[in-house]
């Protein structure tokens, strides 16, 4: 019998590695997932929905949706612009720019929140001006929007840039020589090509803007029913030992995370199909 040379791997290695990997994943992925839903639904569906319909919790869910509704479209728009300028043109400082896009990822979310405190807080650059005009940014909704936009800024551009780099610009240039205008080129040529990457970028932006904790915690001021998003409310409920309610809210965010992973798998499938 001819044994492929590659199979020099000792027999014990596969089962041992498989066992190690599965135990590790069980502890860090499966048990937490199970726990979240078990604790959320442990006292039955009726209690589950009663918890979620509590006025303050419901307000938190609503606020989270509003934050996403503001931040996702804005960041999607500017993410596309950035990806376009970086992949379709050559200019000085381009590589620095590509690196700088990642800055919000490199910074701790708490620091991201801190930045806006130092800009709009009472002692910050615009602090006195804002007070004089009876405007509130920090410890109010605008601060939450800004902090969330900051931490979710890179997602769309980061998904699109490698994709658009790989696609090149031949198609667009061909369309242009045929007389297509800017928006025609984008909507007819570029957009269909980057559709899947864009969808994943948007989904990631959405998941992070609904789930951000550190940055929002710093700028929120934690006014119940007004500036508490879902993740912040999980903290409040957990510290009040209201585990079923805390995990109830957590289960909604977990469903969002699982949906994100499903979208990712689909996108990868379509992208690999197209490459072949």
């Amino acid at each position, binding site marked *: 019998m001819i044994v492929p040379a590659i199979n020099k791997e000792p027999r014990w290695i596969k089962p041992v590695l498989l066992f190690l990997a599965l135990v590790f994943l069980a502890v860090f992925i499966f048990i937490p997932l199970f726990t979240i839903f078990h604790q959320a639904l442990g006292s039955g569906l009726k209690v589950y929905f009663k918890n979620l319909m509590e006025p303050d919790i419901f307000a938190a869910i609503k606020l989270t949706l509003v934050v996403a509704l503001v931040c996702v479209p804005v960041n999607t728009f500017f993410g596309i612009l950035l990806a376009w300028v970086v992949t379709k*043109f050559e*200019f000085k400082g381009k590589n620095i720019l590509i690196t700088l896009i990642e800055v919000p990822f490199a910074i701790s979310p708490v620091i991201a929140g801190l930045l806006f405190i130092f800009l709009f807080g009472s002692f910050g650059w615009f602090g006195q001006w804002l007070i004089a005009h009876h405007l509130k940014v920090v410890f109010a909704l605008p601060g939450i929007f800004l902090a969330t936009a900051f931490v979710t800024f890179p997602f769309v551009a980061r998904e699109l840039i490698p994709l658009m780099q790989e696609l090149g610009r031949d198609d667009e240039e061909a369309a242009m020589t045929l007389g297509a205008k800017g928006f025609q080129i984008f909507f007819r040529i570029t957009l269909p090509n980057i559709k899947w990457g864009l969808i994943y970028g948007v989904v990631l932006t959405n998941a992070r803007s609904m*789930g951000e904790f550190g940055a929002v915690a710093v700028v929120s001021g934690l006014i119940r029913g007004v500036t508490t998003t879902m*993740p912040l409310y999980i903290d409040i409920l957990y510290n009040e030992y209201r585990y079923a309610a805390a995990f109830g809210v957590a289960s909604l965010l977990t469903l969002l995370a699982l949906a994100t992973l499903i979208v990712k798998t689909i996108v990868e499938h379509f992208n690999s199909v197209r490459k072949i």
Partner: protein
Amino acid sequence: MGIKITAAKKPRSRGTGLPGFGLTLGLSMTYMALLIFIPLSALILYSARIGPREFWVLISDERVMAAFKISFLSAFIAALFNFIFGLVIAWVLTRYTFPGKRIIDALIDLPFAIPTAVAGIALAFIFSPNGIMGVFLKNFGLELAYSRKGIVLALVFIGLPFVVRTVQPVIQELDKELEEAAASLGADFYQIFGRVIFPSLFPALLTGFALAFARGLGEYGSIIFISSNQPYHTEIVPLLIVKKLLQFDYRGASVIGVTMLVCAFVLLLLINFLEAFAARGKSR
């Protein structure tokens, strides 16, 4: 900043005549300036007004130094765990077939996708002395929750996908002919692994390690639930910043914030360098 100058000078775009250069560059630069650069400079300039002596007094404070030590050490240990287990998981997922593999592969990214507060309460609940894992580990005299070990635990969770996802494609592209050649020359498995496989994985592993480390340094949400948050003992840097803000100690908060910013930028540079190094290492 250099970027703004190039934007204002309206540099020539070479190579293509595609439309929209000025508009897209101008708009996206404006947005980045408003959202990122101006807020960053607000913090930096605020802390720059603090003299170097006071800066040093504030940063060398015993409690601040303890927090830095805890943050760096925990992030390092957690990244080390992920270095090892990330390699094992990436190896298992690329080289072996087993039932449920595709689902597991998709779930590896869960720590990326799940909000940190959710991960925090789930881990704290599981590893608390009465939780599923807590009860089990108590039999071995191990108490993970509400201690420094809890911080590491949360950071292992947060950092796992970084190593797996950077190493996985490299394992996939490993040149099997090299392994076969080594085997036909009489090398045993350990020699092949040590001399052929591991060296080609090492740059990617290092990148994953650095990414996990950087993320661990800044992590806040998941840790505060599972750590007891005691000064000098389990207080991480981001938590200390939040506490200083709550006490209106803005000078203290800005000094720590700027120091963390510098660390983040150094790590970002290092990661970029490692990625370039890893890309060169690949024989493509």
